[in-house]
């Protein structure tokens, strides 16, 4: 159960990091770029979620095993996020639903 929470943290954390990039934000939210404050917030949130994932892995397993699980959960999470962005980007919309986009058009 703890491990599943760790997996979820990895995936969500990576999704936030991805959404901090203009291209991926636009895939999810349309033509506008994210507000600068939103970008910073997404990066911080992403990093925190990944750190939380590592902590959860360390709680669940022996010290020697946990980093392996964590690194592989990042690989799995990144694939998941990439495929979601490619085929069903709207699935990620709830993760940034509360964040503002910038006023002007992208780039």
């Amino acid at each position, binding site marked *: 159960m703890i*491990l599943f929470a760790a997996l979820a943290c990895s995936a969500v954390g*990576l999704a936030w990091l*991805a959404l901090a*990039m203009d*291209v*991926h934000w636009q895939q999810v939210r349309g033509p506008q770029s994210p507000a600068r404050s939103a970008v910073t917030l997404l990066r911080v949130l992403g990093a925190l979620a990944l750190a939380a994932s590592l902590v959860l892995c360390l709680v669940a*397993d*022996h010290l*020697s*095993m946990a980093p*392996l*699980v964590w*690194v*592989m*959960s*990042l*690989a*799995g999470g*990144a*694939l998941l*996020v*990439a*495929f979601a*962005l*490619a*085929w069903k980007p709207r699935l990620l919309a709830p993760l940034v639903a509360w964040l503002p986009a910038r006023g002007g058009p992208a780039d």
Partner: protein
Amino acid sequence: MFQSFRLSMTWVHTWFGLVLGYVLMVAFFFGSLSVFDREIDRWTIPETRFPAQPMPSFDAMLKPIFERLQPEEEELEEARARVGGPLPDAKPVMNWSVYTTHRDPVLELYAEFAITNNPKDPDDHVHGHATIDPRSGRLLPNDPLKVGSEFFYPMHYSLHLEWMELGYWIVGFAALVMLAALVSGVVMHRRIFRELFTFRPKKQEQRSVLDLHNLTGVVALPFHFVFALSGLTIFAGVYLPVDETMLKPQAQAHAMQEAKARGLAFRPAGVPAPLASVDAMVAEAKRRWAARGMPGEVGFLWVHHVGDANSYVSIYRAGSDRVTLVGQAVHFAGPTGRVIFEEPPPTAVSGINDFLTGLHLQHFRHWLLRWFYVLGGLAGCACIATGFIFFVEKRKRQHAAQGVSGARWVDAMAVTTVTGMLIAALAILVANRVLPAGLAHRGEWEKAAFWGAWLLAFAHALWRTSPVRQARLAPAWAEQCWAITTLGVAAVLLNWITTGDHLLRTIGNRYWPVAGVDLFILASAALAALAAAKLVRRGREVPAAVASGEDSPTGDVEPAAPQAARVAS
């Protein structure tokens, strides 16, 4: 030679990747299957479909079986050739050993017997082994081929090329090239972080194939790097056999020194002595592990110098909860059962080595991490397969215009190693269920089915990639995908018909080794069908697309690649 560092790296990546990619594909695919080698063994040997068992009583069960063990006839034959004459009747037992993991229902016992009349090699010996059901002590036949652990697993590191250990060398070289390909790939890739999540399936196929190549390569980069590296360190003894060649006397002296430091006898005394209760030693070892805060089960038990006054028993803890394999050995004097030496925690260097070995060989109990290993392996397969496809896509028009057939050959080899390999792996499973039970050399026939199917797939790939010469999509991909679907469904049905273990029953009984293999095969069959259907559709669209200067076939060949590796588990 090249205008820039990046161009030279591109050259290395392209050409070494292409040539050794075929080998790496085999190593990655069969490595992924080897994560579940014991489970595949259960699928292929229905008599052994029962839950994993702990190490049984040595005194009551294992010892009498060890005492009846005989050397293998084949090995005796070879020993006669080495000695150049008949062997002595008495072949004293040198040692006994038994190894188990948390995934083994059956137990394998090994013994070494001394060959005392080889003047060239005083340490010459032959082996004997037996497989038992640890619940009853019943001997199981040794003959059935353990398709997972005795065929797929050695395929992963030796390609079954035993002559001069050639297979080990080829795989080792491929692993080295893999490291170079990873480094050069990172150099070539300008925007690793910016494009980490980039996959554009709707763009033209060269772009989307390259996206997928980068994606699967980069996200699993730590996995790829560490596995290529640890694979090399595991076989360092094969690649740099200094202990056997240049430094043999030193290595021998070192082993003697080490044994002496631990108070363990390097040689038998030549004086017979009985063996004290090994069960009592096991109990003491477990007590000591618990006292060190790591209670555990026995993973490996080794009786040295059997029946001699110098005999000693080494008991290793199973590393189910650690990355490292067995460890924390406690050594006991055979005749008295007194503790001679308890291994201290390993030094930093051997700790790292143990960690790398354990990480690669994964005997731990952690199903999530096992599946992650499969994911990493399959990502590697996808990365290599998309590399091939990119190579072909980039060149096929140019080659078609020039009238050269390079792209076609690369495509044919790619079909053979991607879908052909799956066909071969499924063929051995089907053969395993179809061949009559009492057939002599049944295992050999199963292997023949594997190689035969692969050869057929190669011939088919050669024949059906000829459209690549006109820069069209090769029908070989779709056709072999259909073959995968057919064979996969057949394998699952045959398992049901011949053993009665259909999915409802295995899942209902929570017997995951067989249910998992079945589900995995079905998932691959479904993915192959999906890929085939898409390929056929693209194949029809392509002639028009080529005319209008658009393209798109291989963006969808791709699903064949991850699924490629999913055949069994």
